[in-house]
């Protein structure tokens, strides 16, 4: 059959599920499942929980029947009791109502039960009552807390009292302050200053003991501490360095006074003192011994002094100034020596100097300890920083020599003593003069800041009522000399002799007089013809120099001459010139006042003049004379 061939196109139907149709009509398909996905999908359909054996055991028809029955029941029940819940509720309400009815009946009958009204404001509590309750509960709580605290405190106190008796705790405390080491079965300690830089030969080894050991031997003494220390016999007792500055009119140096003088406050240490105190006292003994040994060694070595230092037993004697002696005594009271009958001689112990002695030795210790490391490392050991830098800083020979000089302890303390003596002397002189001299007044201002080798004082001289006229001078007190800077800037140096200072002050007082009179002249219009603060002429005096001033009155008719001398006192002469006398007209005489220089001067008795003081008297006299 040769029919015309018709093309038939075979297309696969759309088997994919449509997932979404968009608004523009495009359809989105769910992607066809792959073989594996298909398999897993099918596998999902299998119910693995279903017991296969059960299924096998039962005929499949039965299973079908059961499911049929279920299918019938389930839709039937709701249709059977549509008002079931309503009925149930009504039934319950009915039961309630009947119970209530019964109750009401019983109440109404009053046979079996009586009802009473109940007070409704029960929970409403009053504020004060509430506060009271709270307070009470708080008190209870506080009581519990305080009880607990008290118990804790008690326990702690008990603990403390226990530790005091605890040897180990004591040992720990001891270990904190002192160096200890264990040698075999004993504990040894060290109380010397060796670790602090001391190079004293004497050691200070002490032994630590447990007191219970001692008690076991027989004597049972109630002790404060369960630890005891045994101090070497040479360090027992109390020691101190007695420094005395004595002004001796010394025909004989008082050597016998070097016996012990122990102030009562420094009694011997009793055996059962606390170990800390015991050790400290022993350490002090050692320190004093070292200090004294050092001083004694220096006293013997130093040859520079004009008068040699003397070392006798436990005493070092040196001369400070002629007639003033410094004695340094080591007082070591062990409590074993016989009671020396102490004379009532007052101890003139100089605490300041003793303190500076201690300070000086401590400085030595400190220097011993502070030894800077060498720079560079191959350099000499023990060079100070200053010495190390001497090279790079190009120090001159003199500077290096000064650096090498090392002042001994004794020299330093001697210097300090000299300064102290000189300061007290000058103070004494100034005070004495301020008291004895009423006109003019002396006033000293000591600077509160001074070193142990220098101090300064400003002395001002004023007259009462004329305080604006002031003469002030500054005294710088050094080691054995006093530098004085005077009002006019002149500097003069005084030695340690107190008479020099006295002379200078008296001279300054005379100068003050002339200065104030010159000042008065300026104010009153007088003319100062001459003013010399230290004139070389005049009567011969025991000491001191005269200051004088010569003035002419404004009208040139009166000439006043004033002399002031520390010994003979102040004197005033007045001369009146008659203006009519004009005898010679030499060309050298330019004014009348010069012509009147010669002639008779009459002395005025200053004591009879009226006025509070000299300046006041002369002021008044000048005022009177300028009118005449």
């Amino acid at each position, binding site marked *: 059959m040769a029919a015309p061939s018709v093309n038939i196109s075979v297309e696969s139907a759309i088997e994919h599920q449509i997932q979404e149709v968009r608004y523009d009509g495009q359809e989105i398909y769910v992607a066809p499942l792959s073989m594996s996905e298909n398999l897993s999908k099918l596998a999902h359909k299998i119910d693995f929980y279903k017991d296969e054996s059960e299924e096998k055991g039962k005929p499949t028809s039965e299973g079908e029947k059961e499911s049929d029955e279920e299918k019938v029941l389930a839709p039937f029940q709701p249709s059977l009791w549509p008002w079931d819940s309503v009925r149930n509720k009504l039934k319950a309400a009915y039961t309630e109502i009947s119970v209530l009815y019964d109750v009401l009946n019983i109440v109404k009958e009053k046979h079996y039960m009586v009802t009473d009204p109940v007070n409704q404001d029960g929970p409403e509590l009053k504020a004060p009552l509430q506060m009271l309750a709270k307070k009470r509960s708080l008190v209870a709580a506080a009581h519990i807390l305080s009880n607990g605290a008290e118990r804790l405190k008690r326990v702690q106190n008990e603990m403390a009292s226990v530790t005091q008796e605890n040897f180990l705790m004591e040992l720990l405390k001891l270990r904190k302050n002192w160096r200890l080491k264990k040698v075999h079965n004993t504990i040894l300690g060290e109380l010397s200053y060796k670790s602090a830089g001391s190079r004293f030969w004497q050691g200070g080894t002490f032994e630590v003991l447990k007191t219970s050991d001692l008690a076991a031997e027989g004597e049972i003494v109630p002790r404060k501490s369960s630890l005891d220390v045994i101090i070497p016999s040479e360090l027992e007792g109390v020691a101190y360095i007695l420094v005395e500055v004595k002004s001796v009119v010394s025909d004989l140096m008082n050597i016998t006074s070097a016996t012990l003088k122990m102030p009562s406050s420094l009694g011997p240490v009793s055996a059962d003192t606390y170990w800390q105190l015991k050790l400290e006292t022993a350490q002090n003994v050692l320190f004093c011994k070292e200090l004294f040994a050092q001083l004694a060694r220096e006293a013997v070595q130093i040859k520079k002094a004009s008068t040699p230092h003397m070392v006798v037993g436990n005493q070092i004697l040196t001369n400070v100034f002629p007639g003033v002696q410094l004695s340094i005594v080591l007082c070591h009271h062990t409590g074993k020596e016989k009671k020396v009958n102490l004379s009532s001689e007052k101890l003139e112990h100089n605490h300041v100097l003793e303190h500076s002695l201690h300070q000086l030795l401590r400085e030595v210790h400190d220097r011993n300890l502070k030894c800077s490391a060498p720079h*560079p490392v*191959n*350099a000499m050991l023990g060079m100070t920083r200053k*010495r*190390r830098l*001497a*090279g*790079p*800083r*190009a*120090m*001159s*020979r003199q*500077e*290096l020599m000064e650096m090498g000089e090392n002042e001994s302890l004794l020299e330093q303390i001697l210097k300090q003593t000299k300064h102290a003596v000189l300061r007290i002397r000058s103070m004494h002189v100034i005070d004495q003069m301020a008291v004895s001299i009423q006109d003019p007044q002396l006033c000293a201002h000591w600077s509160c800041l001074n070193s142990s080798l220098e101090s300064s004082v400003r002395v001002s001289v004023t007259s009462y009522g004329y305080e604006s006229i002031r003469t002030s001078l500054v005294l710088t007190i050094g080691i054995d000399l006093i530098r004085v800077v005077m009002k006019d800037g002149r500097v003069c140096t005084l030695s340690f002799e107190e008479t020099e200072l006295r002379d200078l002050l008296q001279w300054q007082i005379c100068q003050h007089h002339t200065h104030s009179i010159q000042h008065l002249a300026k104010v009153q219009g007088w003319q100062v013809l001459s003013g010399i603060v230290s004139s070389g002429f005049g009567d011969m005096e025991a000491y001191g120099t005269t200051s004088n001033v010569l003035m002419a009155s404004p009208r040139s008719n009166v000439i006043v001459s004033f002399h002031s001398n520390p010994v003979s006192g102040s004197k005033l002469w007045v001369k009146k010139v008659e203006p009519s006398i004009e005898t010679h007209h030499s060309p050298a005489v330019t004014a009348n006042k010069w012509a009147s220089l010669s002639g008779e001067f009459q002395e005025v008795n200053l004591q009879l003049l009226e006025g509070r003081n000299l300046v006041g008297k002369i002021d008044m006299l000048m005022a009177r004379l300028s009118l005449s």
Partner: protein
Amino acid sequence: MGVSCVYMYPVPEGRSGAHVVEVLQKQVETIGGVKMGSFVVDCESYLSIMLSVSKTLQILHNTEYPASCFAVLDSGATLVADTLFNGLLSHLKAYYQARKGSKIESKGNRYQLADFVIKIGSVTLSGSFKGILVEVEYCPSVIASECWNLMKELLQSLIGNIAESPPPSLKMKMDEIYTPAMTMLQYLEHFNNFRKAAAVSQPPR
């Protein structure tokens, strides 16, 4: 430490150096100088051997500064060190070597006259006398311009008109604080002059 001025004092023809030194010393003593020991300033040259252009390092010592050692480069840069520096140089042999016969020193007496220190030194280069150097130091001041006139007066009474103006190396630093290194630079300048003069008079064989 104060300001120092160093001058060369010429030796007149036909007179020995020792004689001139003696005359100067007598002069100082007449104006009140007191002899206080002696002094030495010495200088040694070191040549660098590693560099293509040889450089010199001058090492100076002064008894006035006994703890110090001065090292000066050609540029005038000065290092002040302590005496350990000498030991260091011996370790630097590979870099710096001492020039032979270069040791020059000024040696003589030291006089004190109030605030002044006067030093009269005769200069010797490897053992032979070369000239005289006079140093005057004024101790209380450290500013050269402030004490120059005072020093000039003393110097002129001693060595005459040579001290008309401050030494050239000091001229620039008249208002600066004087340092010991400045003294050493003055000495070095004179030493170099002496060396040059010696080189001219004795051509190397």
